[in-house]
C-alpha cells in the first residue's frame, strides 16, 4: 500500500498548482477550475489522514466536500453568467467596480 505521506505530498503539490492558477489566470472559468483543484487537494488530504489514523471520519468529510464543491460550481457558473450579462466579459482584470 502507498504510504499516506506520498498522498499528502501529492495533495500539497496539487494545492499549490491550484493556488498559482488562481493568481495568474485571467479567465474566471479557469480560476474556478483551479479552485476545484484546491478543493480536491484538500479531499486527498482528508483521505490520506483517514488512512493514516484508520478512522472513517476523513472519508466522510471528503464526501461532504465533494457535495459542496458541486454546488459551489453551480453557483459560481451562475454568477459568471450574471456577470457576463452585465459586463459582457468574464476576464477578471476588467471587472473591478469595487476599486477605491
Amino acid at each position, binding site marked *: 500500500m502507498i504510504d499516506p505521506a506520498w498522498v499528502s505530498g501529492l495533495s500539497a503539490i496539487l494545492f499549490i498548482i491550484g*493556488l498559482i492558477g488562481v*493568481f495568474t489566470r485571467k479567465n474566471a472559468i479557469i480560476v474556478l477550475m483551479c479552485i476545484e483543484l484546491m478543493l480536491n487537494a484538500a479531499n486527498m488530504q482528508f483521505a490520506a489522514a483517514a488512512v493514516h489514523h484508520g478512522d472513517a471520519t476523513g472519508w466522510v468529510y471528503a464526501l461532504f466536500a465533494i457535495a459542496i464543491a458541486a454546488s459551489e460550481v453551480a453557483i459560481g457558473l451562475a454568477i459568471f453568467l450574471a456577470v457576463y450579462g452585465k459586463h459582457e466579459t468574464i476576464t477578471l482584470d476588467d471587472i473591478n467596480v469595487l476599486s*477605491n
Partner: protein
Amino acid sequence: MSGSSSSEVVHSSMAEYAPLIILLPMLAMPVILFLGKVFNTNPTWKNTLKEGGIIALVAMGAALFISLAIIKDYLGSFSNNGDIFSLTWLNTAIWEGGASTTPISFGFGIYIDHITVMLLFVAAFLCFLINIFAIGYMNTDEINDNRNHRFYAEFVLFCAAMLGMVLSDSFLGLFIFWEIMGLCSYLLIGFYYERPSAASAAKKAFMTTRIGDVFLMIGLIMLWDLFGSLNYSVVFDPANIALVNPGSLQMALGMMFIGAIGKSAQFPLHVWLPDAMEGPTPVSALIHAATMVNAGLYLVARMFPFFGAESMSGELIDLAFIIASIGGITAVMAAAIAFVQDDLKKVLAYSTMSQLGYIFTGLGVALWLANTLDWHHDPAAHTIVVVAFGAALFHLFNHAMAKGMLFMASGSVIHEVHHAHHHLHHDDHGDDDEFDAQSMNNMGGLASKMPITATAMLVGSASIMGLPLIGGFWSKEGIIANAWRVALEDPRFLFPAACVLLGAGMTGFYMTRMWVKTFAGKPNNEVAAHVGPTNSWIKTPLFILTLVTLSSVLLAGMGFTHWAPDSEYSFLSDKGLVDGIIYELGHAFANHDAFFFVLTYVAIALSAILGPFMAMSLFGGKLEEGEDCKPWFKPVIALNNWVYNKYNWDNSGIATSGLAVALQNRLYIDKYYDLAMVKIVAGFSNKAAEVDTKIIDGAVKQIEDKSQKISTIVRSLTTGSARDYILWVAIGTLLIFFFIWGVA
C-alpha cells in the same frame, strides 16, 4: 394632664382602607385627564362635571371620609406600633464581599401615629375644602376655559402625594411623595405657562426646592448607612438608635433639615415662595399655605424619636438650636418684608414664611427639651416636652386652617375685583395688562360688599396674629413661652426666643395693615366700588374654616396642645371639656410663674395692641358715606377710624428710607442670589464650555482627523480585482497557519 394612658395596640378596622386614601385621588388623575381630553367642550362636562372638578371632589371626599374614620379610631389611644399595612415592591440584597449578603426589601407601607393623624386631618380636610373653592374660582373665569381638567388632574395628584407622604411608613416613601409634590407644585405654579413670569416662577420654585432635596437625599443616604434601613419601625427603635454614633446622626438629620428648609421656604431657601404666587389662588391656598409647605415641618416633627431617645440625651442640642434659629430668623425677616408688600397674595406668602418660622422655632425648642430633659422617667419633664411639641403641631394646625382660609378669602377678593374690572372695562381689553387685580391699591372699603369674605379674613388674620381666644393664640403663646423656657436654660436660645416675641408684634402690624387696606376705608378706585358678592362655591369653605378657627378654644380645651410621639400619651385630655377650657384659660392668663405671666402679657400687648394700633394709625379710614356693613365689623371699623384720626402721622419719611426700600426689594436676597449665579454659575459654565470645546471636542476631532487619514491609506488596498482579494485571503490564512504553528 397626660391623663388616661393606654399603650395597647389600636386595631382600627378602617385602617385597612388607608391605602385607598392615596389611591383614589391618584386614580382620579388619569381619569380626569382622559375625560377632559375627550369631552373638552361638551356642555355636560363643562357645567355638570365642572371640567373634572366634581370627579376630583368625589375622590377627595372619599379620601376625607376614610381619613376621618381612621382618625376617629385613633383618637384617645395611641400606639407607636404604627405599621399596619405594607406591600413589598422590590427584594434585593447588598453584597458585602465574599459570599455574605444582607437581604433588603423596599416597599410601601402605611404607618399611623399621632403626627400622622394630625397631618392627615389637616391635609385631607383642606384638600377637600380647597377643591370646593377651586370649582368656584377656576370654573368661573374665562381664561381657564377648556383647560381646567389639567388643573384638577394636577390638583388630585398633588393631594395624593401629600396624603401619601403623611401615611408613608418609611423615609424612602416620604421622599418619593415629597418629590411628586415638588413636581405638582412646579406644574401648578406654571399653570398659566403662557405668562413668562409664571413660567419663571415655576422654574424658580422647582430649582430652589431641588437644592434642599439634594441635601435631603444625602441625609437619607447617611441615615441608611447608619441604620441599614429607612423604615420608621427600624430607625425609631430606641435599641437601634442606641447603637448609632450621635455625631453622624446629627449630621444626617442636619442634611435632612436642609431639605425641610427648601420645602418649607425658610431662610435662606425662601426665595421661591413669594414668586410662586403666580399660580392660581387655589394653588396658593393648597400648596403654599396649607399643605406642601408643611411637609418640611412634618419631616422635622418626624425626627422626634431621635431627639427623644435616651441614648442621644444632650447630643443633638446643636441641631435643635439651628432649627430654632432658622425659624426665628425667617419669622422676623419675612414679617418685615410683609410690611411693605402691596400685593395681597404676597403679604400672605410672607406671612406664611413667617408663621412656618414660628413652627420651626417651636419644633426646635421641643426637640431641645426632648433631648435634654429626662422625660422618660420624670412626669413633670414629660408634660413639658409633650406640651412644647404639641404647641408646635397645634400651631401647624391653626396656621394651616387660618392661612388656607386667608388665601381662599384673598382669592375671593381678587376674583371679584377682576370681574368688576372686566365688567367696567368691557369694551377695551387693552388696559387689561396694566390693571393688577392682586394689588391692595386697587381695593379698599370691601367690607360692605363681601361680608363673608371680610369675616373670614378678619378671623383668619386674628388667628395668625394670635388675638386672645382665637385660633393661633393658643399655639403661638405655647411656642413663645417654651422658647423662653429654653432660653433660660441655654443662653443661645435667647436669639430665637427674642425673634419670635418680636415677630408677634410684627405679625399684628402686617395682618392688620392687610385687612384695613383691603376692607376698610374708602374704595381706592372705581373698580373697587363695583365689586359684588362672591359665589357659594367660594363662600362654603370660607364659612366652614371660620367656624374651625373660632372653635380652636374648644380644641385647646380638649388637649389639642398636647401631642407627642409617646405610647404613654393620649390626645384627648382626661378632663371634661369645660374643665379643660378652664384649665387652659387659667394657664394662659394667670400663670403661677411670674416670668411666664409677664411674658404672656407682653406677647399679647405686642401682637394684639401695639402692632394693630400702628397699622391702623397708618392705613385706617372709615367706609364711604351710605355704605353699610355687618354689625360685627362696626366696632372694628370704628376703632380703626378713631385710631387713624387721632394718631395718624406722616410716614413718608420712613416709607422712603433705605430700610423700607430694602424691604421692598426683599432685602436684596434675590438680587444677591442672581449675582452669585451670574458670577459663579455663569463663570463655571464658561470654563466648562472652554474645556468642552478645547479638550473633549478637540480629542474627538483629532480622532476623526487621524482615522480619516488612516482610512485613505487603507482604502488604496481595495483594488476591485478579485485576485488581489484572494491573495490577501491566502496571505492571511498562511499567517494564521504560521501563528498556530508557532504557538504549538
